[in-house]
């Protein structure tokens, strides 16, 4: 008889992680449920999108229904010190940070995985729509999920070989509609966690209110200029703007203006017409190569510069120090420093990093 390894399932109370847990239980794995308790602003604990008391009670009910042990892991301080601080300092530096990237790397696949392993689990499973394939030499490849509309391989691109080796992604082979069907068959709740892209710790508020309380220096007004340096108006703080943004610049001009650049040193917002927007190169840093080794020489890839962006063709030039330079076939309009860029070879995630410029 094969002894299956003990698996900790990262639960959220939502349909995906609940079905992931149920599938593993049905396959005979020894399963435990774990859930993160993340940081919220004092008073806003009930609004945290990832771990409201309701969501936790729901996850606990699912665990009870599946007959597995359930644990809530306190990550409040760690989350605050890493994810929230990176978010704040990112805006202060003029970036448009993606805190979920930091959370996935340091909290979900960091603290939570470490805790699962300390509990004696050999694997941690999540309800992400992505697939893993183990090669003969033991290398684990990260592949897109079967359901193109739900594919979440983008956010998992920062996982190392060690993390991928400990991962189980039971939903990658399923369509979302099949997962809903499975939930009904298992008698599990089919409630969805909010699909909004809001950050969990913003508790439904606009991020600028949050910045105003925690990093007011990111909201300092300054000049709006064009490429030639002519002052066109005053901005409300560079954190209000994202490269490629058109709406909300607040200047009357004969043609639509777009945010071209944010100069942190001079606290200047550079704007211009659509013809000046776009770049065909991109510099990425903090690059993770999922195979664990830096690819030899440049290679062509499909690239995603945001979670919901279309794939674009580019040539990737791996560089020293976890960096990479990308040259796109066609200029890209909304390359946003701070966001995650992910490189694909067909179905496989080759790597990803943060957009530096």
């Amino acid at each position: 008889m094969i002894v299956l390894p003990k698996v900790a399932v990262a639960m959220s109370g939502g349909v995906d992680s609940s079905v992931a847990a149920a599938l593993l239980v049905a396959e005979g794995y020894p399963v435990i449920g774990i859930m993160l308790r993340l940081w919220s602003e004092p008073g806003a604990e009930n609004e945290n999108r990832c771990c409201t008391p309701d969501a936790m009670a729901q996850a606990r009910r699912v665990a009870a229904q599946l007959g597995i042990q359930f644990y809530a892991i306190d990550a409040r301080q760690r989350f605050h010190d890493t994810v929230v601080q990176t978010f704040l300092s990112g805006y202060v530096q003029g970036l448009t940070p993606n805190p979920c990237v930091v959370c996935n790397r340091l909290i979900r696949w960091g603290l939570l995985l470490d805790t699962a392993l300390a509990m004696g689990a050999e694997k941690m499973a999540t309800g992400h729509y992505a697939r893993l394939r183990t090669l003969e030499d033991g290398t684990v490849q990260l592949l897109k999920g079967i359901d193109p509309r739900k594919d979440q391989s983008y956010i998992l691109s920062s996982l190392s070989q060690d993390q991928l080796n400990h991962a189980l992604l039971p939903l990658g082979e399923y369509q979302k509609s099949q997962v809903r069907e499975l939930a009904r068959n298992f008698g599990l709740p089919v409630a969805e966690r909010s699909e909004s892209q809001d950050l969990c710790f913003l508790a439904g508020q606009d991020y600028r209110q949050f910045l105003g309380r925690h990093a007011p220096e990111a909201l300092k007004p300054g000049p709006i200029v064009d490429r030639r340096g002519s002052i066109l108006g005053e901005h409300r703080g560079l954190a209000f703007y994202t490269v490629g943004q058109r709406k909300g610049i607040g200047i009357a001009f004969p043609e639509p203006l777009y945010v071209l650049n944010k100069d942190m040193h001079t606290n200047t917002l550079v704007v211009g017409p659509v013809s000046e927007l776009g770049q065909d190169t991109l510099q990425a840093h903090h690059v993770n190569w999922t195979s664990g080794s830096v690819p030899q020489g440049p290679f062509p890839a499909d690239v995603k510069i945001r979670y919901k962006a279309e794939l674009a063709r580019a040539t990737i030039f791996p560089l020293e120090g976890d960096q990479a330079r990308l040259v796109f076939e066609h200029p890209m309009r909304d390359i946003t420093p701070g966001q995650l860029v992910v490189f694909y070879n067909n179905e496989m995630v080759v790597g990803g990093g943060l957009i530096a410029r």
Partner: protein
Amino acid sequence: MNIGTDQPVYLDYAATTPVDERVLAVMLPYFTDFYGNPSSIHYFGQQAERALENARRVVAECLNARNDEIIFTACGTESDNLALRGVAFAQRKLKNANHILISPVEHHAVANTARQLAEEFGFEVEFLPVDEFGRVDPNDVTAMIRPETALVSVIYANNEIGTINPVSQIGLICHQKGIPFHTDAVQAAAHLPIDVQADLVDLLSVGGHKLYGPKGVGALYVRRGTPIMPVETGGKQEGGLRAGTQNVPYIVGMAEAFQLAQIERQSRAGQLVPLRDHLIERILAVVPRARLTGHPVERLPNHASFVFEKVDGNLLLMLLNEAGFACSSGSACKVGAPEPSEILTAIGLSRNWSLGSLRLTLGRQTTLEHVDRLINVLPSLVEKTRTLQVT
């Protein structure tokens, strides 16, 4: 722990205990055969009433009290609520008494009832100091008690750190001053001889499920003549102090369990004390940066409690459960937001220590093998939680 095969070793007898089979056996007929309402005139009612009054006599004997001084309630918490609220309101009515004196190491049932009496009903609640072991100094009671004190409440033996208070000395002081003295003996009653005459206690709370009786039943001893008014109003049950049809099978069960606890007290302690002392000695020896909490000698015979520096106690409980040991801590939290316990803070522990608490409470099913297995795994689990905190 492998799901569906081995259960963890249970080391949380201060949280609750399994019902003794002898207790279950005497309870069962009162669900189906002798189901009468003790307030009824008829045959069935009188049958139930006999059982109820017999249980009252048994509980009274266990406490060296009179039968009519025993009020049955739904749990130890309810007994504490009735004692505090019932006496506070009666004393205010009787002599305008507005002052309540409690310790900072009370169970939440006393502490939060006192808090509500302060916040919502205008009583002045004052806290006695405690030493590093969580013990009240009777001299402080003498110094702080006032003519307008409505009641004094000091826990008999603390649930979290196991420390036993000098109840009889406090009782004597309160008796001399003529101020009602309540003690929560929910933990103590399972292990210690309780004598309300010798201890000069006026009100004393017990519960069924800490001493191998059922959950959902408790009792309050109320000395004759103590000013008290009902909190639960309705019918005339329990001398008018606790309305509601008595839970006869549970009351019968609690009385049986209490009697067994008293009869077998010494043999149970004889089993528990060596295990407890072995556990304390070994854990302090093998776990770095560990301290015993509570009194080294004046503590419950089944109770070993610790703090570990820079350990997430909540996480340690999870690791222990996965390693096959069901334990508890002062900051146990099921939603991942643990806070240091008030009791560990009251005995002067900093946050670095108080968040890392572990309570091991032993019972009749505990063996030396259980204890040794725990001692073997604990150091590595403590180390794991310390590592997780810094990475």
